């Protein structure tokens, strides 16, 4: 099969997580009041996506170490 699908999933979700975290941290808070019921959903959901991305990446990394050595 070759390519471990957990690599691209881990990387793309980590990137998305970081983008949303930063954007949520610097964005005008009035946007969240107007849209997402006052919750800074970008910040929190960015964090969730980053955790998931790192988890998938770690899984892929461990699998590649096991087959590599």
């Amino acid at each position, binding site marked *: *099969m*070759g*390519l471990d*699908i957990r690599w*691209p*999933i881990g*990387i*793309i*979700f980590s*990137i*998305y997580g970081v*983008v*949303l975290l930063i*954007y*949520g941290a610097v*964005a005008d808070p009035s*946007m*969240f009041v*107007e*849209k*997402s*019921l006052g*919750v800074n*959903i*970008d910040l929190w*959901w*960015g964090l*969730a*996506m980053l955790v*998931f991305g790192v988890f998938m990446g770690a899984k892929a990394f461990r699998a590649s170490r096991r087959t590599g050595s």
Partner: protein
Amino acid sequence: MRPHLVDYAIIAIYFIFVLGIGFALRGRMKTSEDFFLSGRSIPGWITGLAFMSANLGALEVIGQAANAAKYGMYVNHFYWLAAIPAMCFVGVFMMPFYYGSKVRSVPEFLRKRYDEKTRTLNALSFAVMTLLVSGVDLYAMAILFQRLLHWRFDASVVASAVVVAIYIYLGGLTSSIYNEVLQFFLIVFGFLPLAILGLKAVGGFAGLNATLATLPTPGYAHTWANIWHASENPLGVDWFGTIFGLGFVLSFGYWCTDFLVIQRGLAAKDMAAAERTPLIAAIPKMFFPLLVVLPGLVAISLDPTTKLLLDGRYDNALPALLGRFYPSGLLGIGLTALLASFMSGMAGNVTAFNTVWTFDIYQTHINPGKDDRHYVTMGRAATLFAVIVGICTAFIVLRFNNLMDYLQLLFAFFNAPLFGTFLLGMFWKRASAHSGFWGLLCGIVAAATHYLFYHYNYIHYPSAMTANFYQAIYAFATCFVVTVAVSWFTKPRKEEELVGLVYSLTPRPKTAHLPWYQRPGMLALGILGLCVVLNIIFW
């Protein structure tokens, strides 16, 4: 809805990854087995998620949210009554034959079990249907993005079709499966906040139930309580049509015989992984009402007259909520999830088409006996052909808007009788070689006749959905009866030819050495038990 730069950047990153996966897999497509069946090398959890996502195209995501806004929790039946039991059945009882007989496609199984003409009939009808459906995904996507974001219809059709063509051309079925898995996680992360924010906005489940109870149509907040009489539920279907038509014929017909999903199981690395494929798919499928039905219900309770938020169209339910609740940033993720589901919906159809075309039509009837490389090249050409036809159908659907209804109908034409052919083929060793073809043909003719009678008002139903359910029942019953009748008058096949194809003549795969959660039977029982609990909670 006004996306910002950050949202477009998120969409662009997705396209880069999709194409990147195609390029990364390019060098690994050496044989036809690699290209069409991923070299039968994929772990069960990946084929399982792909099995579920291949079905998550445009009609599913946008359509089920729209249905929920229109008909209420009744839509849960599409999941808990229809999909889950059928997925458990295909995993435990049918996948051993599909995978164990080493066939490369569903039509090829029909050739082994029945004969060449049964296979050809199925291959041709499947190829035509798949080509038409692949354009519908493109059409639905382009029309949605035109309405939401004012993207040009032709530009989004061509751009997304080209991306799909490139990644399948390069990486074959593996590309398609990988993108389906990526799409699965994008949909979960893209739509889950919608359920959370939506519930918060309407005051939790208690608030939602209270609002739904005030709606003029009864039964929005119940899955089962209003099923018994057609006049009491919003869909206008009686219990027999629901349970037998939807729950048995239509759902088993789709999940057990449609090559689009079965192909994912055939790509699994071993028999155990193949059997687990539909079962692993059933677990997230069971919770999908949370992502599509719940937003539909939230949309209708925020806007019971459908005038403000929904703009008079139930189709708007999911996109309107995205625009209402998602700030920039998360909006990019939500739009990417939508795009991903449209594109992999189309990709699933294209990979199923190129396999059936190459193996069951081209290699069998047009140009047999060439070397393996030739058929890989043909598969790539068929990919490009399918995408071009898909683009053309998208434009045809644009001109004739009601083509969507006809395509839904085609499904009831071909899948419902096919399930009769498979059920008898796999569980009744007496079914003869000729019977498959005649049963299938008569089933299709019965569906067509029923459709004409309904269309010209000779028979009446409370709703079009009821007509679809009953059409499926008649098509299935006709196929079943004709197959049995023809079998009585023709010579049965020799038993030794049917080993590995018929249940009673095939040794069961041994599972005693596996832990209980890896045994297909136990896993299926666990899933069904959980499904019953969900039905009771949302009765």
